[in-house]
């Protein structure tokens, strides 16, 4: 008899708890729950309408951050847009065998993990060449864009524009994201200059590289390495989110840097197809036009000048 009661007890306890919790939470969230849930999560996996109409094409999942303006972002209407998205849409049109789907993923480390485990085929991150990326992923032979780099300095240090000068002056760099292309530039410099290395630490938050603007302006760190494409928009532009620091800071691009779509290691065919289209778009001047539209200047031209 006692055993039967206990058996019934556990089942009924579980059901009662579940029901109470369900009712509790439903009661406090109300009818809004499902609607808000659907709205908020909708952009995460919803493919753009153009991609669903292609038939027989292999679906390619491309993961990117949803608020990486002007590179890739989800606009107020829930649609993906930005420089890399526009370039990819042009490539998608030219490749009938593939259909591109854009997926929201908001942590860079996590997005790269997704590509290496096969959940996604391509990751967008304004990616620079790094040896680790080249070894573990497919980097198309043709770059997707150009992102010339330079040092952000307080105006009193404006004459320090190269990594060599920063190392000589003993400047301390703001913390860098492990595995990131910007960090790789510093690591590569230190590999080549072991006698006078740059001073920096590793950290993790996604907002680290934009936080660095304020860190340098406020004097917490001496300098940071930064893409020219973003500096123009964030600091120089009058409506830039960090324009308040414009008078305190100076920036000069000195390092040429091509960017790549990072493709899964076993997707060589896809990588080659994308690379071929990137070559064509570069040749006919389309990439430059798209870049000027989003960045306000031609980063390819600046990159080429710096490369000389």
């Amino acid at each position, binding site marked *: 008899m006692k055993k039967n009661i206990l058996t019934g007890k556990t089942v009924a306890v579980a059901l009662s*708890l579940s029901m109470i919790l369900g009712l509790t939470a439903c009661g406090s*969230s109300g009818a809004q729950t499902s609607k*808000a849930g659907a709205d908020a999560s909708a952009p995460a996996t919803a493919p753009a309408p153009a991609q669903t109409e292609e038939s027989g094409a292999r679906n390619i999942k491309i993961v990117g*951050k949803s608020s990486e303006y002007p590179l890739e972002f989800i606009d107020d209407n829930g649609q993906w847009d930005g420089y890399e998205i526009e370039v990819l849409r042009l490539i998608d049109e030219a490749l009938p065998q593939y259909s591109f789907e854009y997926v929201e993923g908001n942590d860079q480390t996590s997005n790269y993990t997704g590509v290496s485990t096969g959940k996604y085929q391509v990751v967008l991150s304004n990616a620079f060449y790094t040896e680790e990326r080249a070894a573990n992923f497919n980097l198309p032979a043709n770059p997707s864009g150009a992102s010339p780099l330079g040092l952000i300095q307080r105006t009193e240090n404006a004459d320090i524009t190269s990594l060599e000068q920063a190392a000589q002056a003993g400047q301390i760099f703001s913390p860098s994201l492990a595995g990131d292309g910007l960090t790789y530039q510093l690591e590569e410099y230190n590999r080549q200059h072991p006698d006078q290395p740059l001073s920096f630490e590793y950290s993790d938050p996604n907002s680290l590289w934009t936080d660095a603007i*304020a860190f340098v302006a406020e004097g917490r760190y001496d300098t940071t390495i930064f893409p020219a494409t973003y500096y123009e928009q964030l600091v120089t532009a009058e409506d830039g989110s960090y324009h308040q620091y414009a008078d305190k800071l100076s920036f000069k691009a000195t390092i040429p840097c091509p960017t790549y779509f990072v493709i899964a290691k076993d997707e060589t065919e896809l990588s080659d197809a994308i690379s071929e289209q990137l070559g064509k778009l570069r040749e006919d001047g389309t990439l430059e036009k798209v870049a000027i539209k989003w960045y306000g200047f031609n980063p390819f031209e600046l990159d080429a000048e710096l490369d000389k």
Partner: protein
Amino acid sequence: MQKITLEKIIYFFTGSVPALGVTFAYVIVSMIFGTIIGTGLYRMKSSHSKVAGFLANLYVTVVRCTPSLVMLFLVFYGLPLLVGGEAGARMEEWPILTFVCVTFSIFIGASSSEIIRAAVEAVPAGQAEAGLSVGLSGMQTFRYVTLPQMLKNAMPNIGNTVILLIKEGALAYTIGLRDVLGQAYYLSGREMNAYAVSMYIALTLIYWPLTILLEHLFAAFERALTPWERKGKRAALRRTAEGGAKYAG
């Protein structure tokens, strides 16, 4: 310093609050499935089978030792690989919210098995025996004697688990879930994180009242489940007061 402005706090607050629906969705689903898993684990632990007991304890230990972010990544990236083949490929099509619910159901399963064990064992066997001895049936004894006491014992722990889940679940922004934190990060990213401090203040203003509300709600449930305790307390107070008055008189 980043400027903290009321305008931006309101912007992040109003922009993120609608995503509470997503937060509630994973909390409700994870609590339901977690409780079912927890009940199974409790049954295994309390059974006479040593193997079942060992497996249940192993499950609880493994889950307890795994940080929730690690578990989230293991489920999101590892589970489809583990399943493999076509089923694994189909799993890749699941919405992110499903992976989040699976992760936290696994988590809640471990903790709820302990909550259930504590709740059941805290009710003395004599309570059920007393119910049966006065002629109640097994179900009646459970419904009117043991269940209210068990729920009352479990309620503080359930409340803590729900509150913990709301906060732990926010980690799911890393895999692209737009719950409250994910939505706030999205809005902040749109502004290149220039007003991140305002965003964090707005998040605090969402999480604080929510947690306080839940605390009160579960305390109210606990009181509602044991009305005799309040009556008993009132009666005891009255007796003390009367006794005091008599003594004084």
